């Protein structure tokens, strides 16, 4: 093997090769086992350099590099929706300015230390008081249980509204087209109402959990910050960058079968604010993966009474504090 071969390979890997060079590489790969080994050596190096660079190992000022991730958010601007090719058109609308911001996002160190810092940032953001709206879908899941009076809800396009750590509201379209099922928790009472029917109210936050999207996978929005805290203890955490969106991506895989909870979480988040842009919760059931996905679509403040049931029906609607057995469908 001579220096010319080595240079030829490096030119090729650095995208500095002309067509003639490429033809030579093809030819030598065919004829020489030694050349193939040499190319594999340099491909190992390329893969290593990519991974290390993504981890920030070559950043000039590592402290500054990670500061952005760990610094408190100063942003109060409207959320930049998650952008992923297939969701771009259907889920969110984004501005050119938002795209520029996303392109400028920093990469993150996938070491456990920085993954832990990133997770803490996400937890802090989840505990903040602001309002967030997510679009929720469940894929490859079992059909949802039927709702009150046998009506089901669609699997797609449920909306989840969150405020702080203990208020949430979910809207789901009824499959018979008669309206929506709205379920919520105002911090003290949980409630659910389907179409023009009776409002059911209970004191437990998860009384109507069974009706919510993703009940077969997990319902992370019921106590998102607690769920995220649990990842610190019971999951292997890694941090990477999503190539499509440019967003940092936290990946959490359950450490042990003895731990309750989904197998895997994928969390795409805003590196400035720590706010979750997309959350995938994966739990295989009988060998089939089921995925609950939440996509951030809005961050505007909601009305003060938005999470109470009274804000979602006319005053004369019957309200039942009935037994859990009757409320649970």
């Amino acid at each position, binding site marked *: 093997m001579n220096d010319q071969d080595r240079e030829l390979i490096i030119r090729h890997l650095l*995208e500095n090769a002309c067509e003639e060079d490429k033809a030579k590489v093809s030819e030598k790969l065919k004829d020489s086992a030694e050349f193939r*080994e040499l190319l594999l050596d340099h*491909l190992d190096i390329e893969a290593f350099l990519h991974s290390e660079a993504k981890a920030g190992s*070559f950043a000039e000022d590592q402290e500054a590099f990670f500061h952005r991730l760990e610094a408190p958010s100063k942003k109060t601007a409207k959320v930049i929706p998650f952008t992923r090719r297939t969701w771009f058109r259907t889920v969110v609308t984004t501005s050119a300015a938002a795209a520029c911001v996303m392109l400028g996002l920093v990469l993150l160190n996938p070491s456990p230390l920085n993954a832990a810092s990133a997770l803490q940032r996400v937890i802090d953001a989840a505990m903040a008081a602001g309002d967030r709206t997510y679009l929720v879908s469940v894929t490859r899941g079992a059909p949802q249980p039927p709702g009150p009076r046998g009506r089901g809800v669609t699997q797609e396009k449920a909306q989840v509204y969150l405020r702080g750590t203990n208020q949430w509201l979910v809207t789901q379209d009824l499959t018979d087209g008669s309206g929506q099922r709205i379920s919520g928790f105002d911090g003290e009472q949980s409630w659910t109402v389907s179409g023009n029917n009776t409002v059911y109210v209970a004191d437990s936050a998860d009384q109507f959990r069974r009706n919510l999207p993703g009940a077969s996978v997990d319902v992370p929005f019921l106590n998102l910050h607690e769920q995220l805290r649990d990842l610190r203890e019971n999951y292997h955490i890694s941090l990477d960058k999503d190539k499509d969106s440019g967003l940092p991506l936290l990946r959490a895989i359950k450490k042990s079968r003895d731990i309750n909870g989904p197998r895997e979480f994928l969390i795409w988040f805003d590196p400035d604010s720590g706010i979750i842009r997309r959350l995938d919760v994966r739990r295989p059931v009988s*060998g089939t993966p089921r995925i609950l996905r939440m996509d951030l679509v809005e961050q505007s403040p909601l009305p003060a009474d938005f999470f109470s049931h009274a804000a979602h029906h006319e005053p004369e609607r019957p309200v039942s504090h009935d037994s859990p057995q009757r409320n649970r469908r």
Partner: protein
Amino acid sequence: MSLPNQDKTDDSAKELEFTKLLLENERAIFGFIYSLTQDFNASEELRQELASRLWVKFDHFDGSRPFVAWAIGFARLMVLEWRRAQAKLPIPMDDEVLGKMADAAAERAENRSDIQAALHECAQDLTDLQKKALHARYFDGTSVKEIAQAWDRTQMAVYKVLNRIHESLAECMRAKLKLVPHR
């Protein structure tokens, strides 16, 4: 005669075992895929897709065999599918050459942790200028031409820096692994 459910693996136990094996062998599998795609982003995508496929097939995994070899069997097919679907490849290879590359890459996958450790040690000797070039090239994804413009240097100067890094890492890696240098 065994009862119908007697041999069924418990989902949780299966999950744990799968996750452990996948994490242990992730770098080796990725290295194999990257060797054959020569495309970092495509390799990331294929790795994720592979994990799903492996999970579906995990019931058929024979625990007495190395997981990495089993996974690479699937990875190989996926890379072939991927290459067939590409309009343009960095280096076209016929099936025979690709097969030889895949065999050699699979063999390396079993020593991936040694390769990785050697490269980590070798990278300690990189100079500040070299790190700056690597950050620009692999973190920012900037081309040699763009780096040259940003640094107000010639393309050849930047290329030489990157070339030197590759050469020195290759030499150092082979020395640490006690391999015969390619001469």
